[in-house]
């Protein structure tokens, strides 16, 4: 009597356990995005393209993969004004994200890292009339200071990120000239380098 009940009960348990395996496990290719500020990013893997909007912080491709399928996520198109890298890195919260490529099923859940940084562009210009040392130009308080030497005809500041402002002023005059920023000294960085700032130096009045 006891045995006749035990045997069906065991069979049922076994069947339920197998059903829990879902027949076939699937794995969504998903991840975390840090630093995305602009529209235009398109991630791609296994024939799927996934556009992401500005400020997105996570992604998940529409079709999950089966166990053993290989994925390789790439940034097919960058967002405007930024560059994104798909990579394994330690995120802000301390989580170590997965790299761009692996085999579905090797991790319980796939959490690929995408790190976006805003592009920077060069900032510089021309100098006319400088024949002595001592000139110092500054880009505000945090953009750096440059000291073109006598006879310099150009100058370069540290690159500036997109949408960040710059304002070049004469912090110190050279020994024999009076210099001024005569054009294009202030602006907001776009996508292209700024090379047209002009500093004009004239001999000191005797």
């Amino acid at each position, binding site marked *: 009597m006891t045995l006749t009940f035990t045997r069906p009960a065991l069979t049922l348990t076994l069947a339920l356990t197998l059903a829990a395996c879902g027949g076939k496990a699937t794995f969504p290719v998903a991840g975390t995005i840090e630093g995305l500020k602009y529209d235009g990013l398109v991630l791609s893997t296994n024939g799927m393209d996934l556009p992401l909007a500005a400020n997105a912080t996570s992604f998940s491709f529409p079709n999950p993969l089966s166990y053993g399928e290989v994925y390789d996520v790439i940034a097919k198109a960058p967002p405007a004004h930024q560059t994104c890298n798909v990579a394994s890195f330690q995120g802000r919260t301390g989580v170590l994200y997965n790299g761009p490529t692996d085999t579905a099923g090797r991790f319980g859940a796939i959490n690929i890292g995408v790190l976006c940084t805003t592009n920077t562009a060069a900032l510089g210009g021309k100098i006319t009339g400088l024949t002595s040392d001592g000139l110092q130009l500054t880009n*505000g308080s*945090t953009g750096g200071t440059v000291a073109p030497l006598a006879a310099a005809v150009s100058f370069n500041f540290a690159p500036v990120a997109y949408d960040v402002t710059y*304002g070049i002023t004469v912090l110190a005059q050279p020994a024999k000239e009076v210099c001024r920023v005569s054009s294009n000294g202030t602006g907001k960085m776009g996508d292209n380098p700024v090379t047209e700032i002009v500093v004009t130096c004239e001999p000191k009045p005797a």
Partner: protein
Amino acid sequence: MKNLTLRASVALACALSLAACGGSSGNLLLGGTVTNLFKPGLVLQNKTGPLLPVAAGATTFAFHELIGNDEDFEVKIATQPTGAVCVLANNKGKSGAYNITSVAVVCKTNMYDLGGKISGLDVNGLVLVNGADRLAIPAGATDFKLSQIDDGAPYGITVLTQPPGRTCSVQNGVGTMGAAAVDAVRVTCG
């Protein structure tokens, strides 16, 4: 004879290397890390021991005097740097068997207001910048304040956007921050 010379020089070497320990009884280093120290004048001290000056730009420090095992230590700031304030962490305890390198000195350079007065601004639209720092100024404003900057940092204020129909110019807009707020910048619009 040869042997004697050797023995003497070994003894001398021993004496010298012991003396290098600074006459202290210990054999453990006491030190740590220094973060964001851009100003001169910081002096550290362990309890009432000798003073240790730490130069601007230093990222680590270690006292010249070694300490012993199971010895209490308490690193203190004898003198703050000029134009900055430093605070200590992990600075008090008892030594074990290993060098102590975990004392942390974290400094912050003093910051001051940067601003001045405006005259003749009767429309919206003026935007001033100090490099990457941007400030829109509304019609009718008679003074302005940009973000605070570090003691010793240069500044250069320029006009990013002129208000419609007006031209504003900046006087006294360039300089180097000292140990007090700058309020002497003048913006004249007409």
